[in-house]
């Protein structure tokens, strides 16, 4: 709680925190939605924002506000899932490579380098095309998670490499600690902040990928996400017909979400870097 209090002193963090709270409220609201997001023509079409349709309605006869609650929920689910999966892979690979060193390190880093070098975007698009009709939120999250770990594994490895050279490692080894207990008891506390910082970055990457896949039309367009909302709006020429409320809702939500995630990661990593923290406290 003290950490949160410290972080809330930062204006950028407060702003990002507020947006995240609003998005969480939207997510919760989706469970109380009066409309089924998979049904069309439940409300009159193309209404401008007016009570009871706060954000207007779409050309498919759906209420923009309630669709948005589902879209936010689903986009967040995908990105959280992708973040968790890629975090697990990144931690395991980064830690093993950093701690074991030698041949294991070389092989694992070759793997992650290949992932960094090969045009993954093309390959993700290919996979998505392949599974287009069968794509669910879980498979999308899995797909993005399986491809998004390489850079973060490198970051964690470099942290472990520097920890391994410190005295406490030798003390632990000499006093008979096993590999697992060194990794989990001694190294984890150092790695956790890194995991958090990269987690946010990865989430924002996953949401961006989701939007791009939806716009290319290679994700399952029936599931409402921020990407598919945009895709529908563009497909139905919302901009040309002047239904600004329909296209601007996902655009504004996406922009706010990306800015919030970015500010969160900046302000958290500044908080974690003690040199920066002293600067900030000194300034106040």
């Amino acid at each position, binding site marked *: 709680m003290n950490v949160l209090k410290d972080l809330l002193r930062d204006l950028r963090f407060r702003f990002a925190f507020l947006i995240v709270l609003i998005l969480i409220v939207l997510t919760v609201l989706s469970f109380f939605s009066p409309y089924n997001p998979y049904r069309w023509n439940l409300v009159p079409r193309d209404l401008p924002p007016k009570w009871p349709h706060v954000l207007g309605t779409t050309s498919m006869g759906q209420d923009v506000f309630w669709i948005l609650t589902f879209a936010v929920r689903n986009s967040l689910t995908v990105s959280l899932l992708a973040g968790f999966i890629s975090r697990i892979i990144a931690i395991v690979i980064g830690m093993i490579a950093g701690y074991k060193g030698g041949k294991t390190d070389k092989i694992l880093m*070759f793997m992650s380098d290949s992932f960094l*070098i090969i045009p993954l975007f093309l390959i993700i698009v290919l*996979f998505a*095309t392949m599974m287009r009709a069968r794509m669910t939120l879980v498979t999308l999250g899995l797909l993005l998670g399986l491809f998004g770990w390489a850079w973060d594994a490198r970051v964690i490895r470099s942290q472990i490499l520097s920890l391994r050279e410190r005295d406490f490692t030798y003390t632990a080894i000499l006093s008979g600690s096993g590999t697992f207990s060194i990794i989990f008891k001694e190294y984890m506390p150092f790695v956790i902040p890194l995991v958090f910082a990269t987690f946010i970055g990865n989430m924002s990457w996953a949401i961006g990928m989701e939007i791009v896949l939806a716009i290319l039309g290679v994700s399952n367009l029936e599931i409402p996400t921020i990407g598919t909302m945009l895709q529908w709006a563009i497909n139905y020429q919302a901009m040309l017909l002047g239904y600004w409320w329909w296209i601007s809702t996902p655009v504004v939500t996406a*922009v706010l979400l990306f800015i919030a995630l970015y500010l969160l990661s900046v302000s958290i990593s500044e908080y974690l870097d003690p040199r920066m923290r002293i600067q900030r406290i000194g300034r106040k």
Partner: protein
Amino acid sequence: MNFVKRYLLPRLFIYFLVIFVGITMVFIIPRLLPIDPIQQLIGQISSRGTYLDPKTLNNLIDTLKELYGLKGSLWQQYCSFWRRFLGGDFGPSYYQFPVPVISLIKQSLPWTIGLLLTTTIISWILGNIFGALAAYFSNRRWVKVIDIIAMIIRPMPYYILALSLLMLFAYIFPIFPLGGGYLIGGQIKFGLQTILTLLKYAFLPAMSLILIGFFTWFQAMKLVVQTVKSEDFVTYANIGGVTQARIVNKYIIRNAMLPQITGLALSLGQIFSGSLITEIVFSYPGLGTLLYNAIFTGDYNLLMGITVISIFVITTSILLIDLLYPLFDPRVRYR
């Protein structure tokens, strides 16, 4: 000799290994796609009302399989794929049969390279200059303004930025054309008029790329210079009376350039996949548009051709940068 053995050979080995892994992946993945290009083509032919009796049909399938490189077991296909690839032949495109893939790529490549190479380099140079300046004069007002703009533009999804530029300058204020690379049916000749038209069509896509790129480089450079500026050796040089200009040129810039040069190499490699969204939004003729069509028609050969070339360019640029490192950074020695 030590240099060749301990520096050059391992890097060359990794280089070839990455190309091998990448190309193998590229070979396998399209074959997992549920789209059968031969059935698709036959469907096209019969939908035009042509009747095919079973014997002709079988003959046709056989011929097409051979042409498409789909004949034999997976292993045989793989071997013949490597053979063809080493000979620089990617086979015919299915989408625009029988045009060879390599000539389709040759048509689109100049557009993509022209657009992305220039924008990447322009935004890199501008971003680095302004980033370095901003790190020095971090208390000036213009630095704070750029910082705030960067904070908004940088995290914005590129697609949305591009779309809003298009809406703003093509619909609301119709200054620039809605899309395309050149006047429809226009002749490309050497002359001032042609160049002006080309620039007019390229302006909006270029603008969107430069905007995103500039702020990315700007922030990275600013961060690096700030870190280097507070390192001990800079303080020491200051106390020792080394002139400010010398500190900046010889100490700080040289140290800060290394990650930036690595970044440039990586982003030059991303030209191929990075062009996809730009070219779709602005309907610019180039590799991105070609790729988009290839994905939708299940055009294996075209997809493989583009991806293989992209793997080749990325790995080569990284190898070159790796070999050139010691020239830029005094800290790196050939070990």
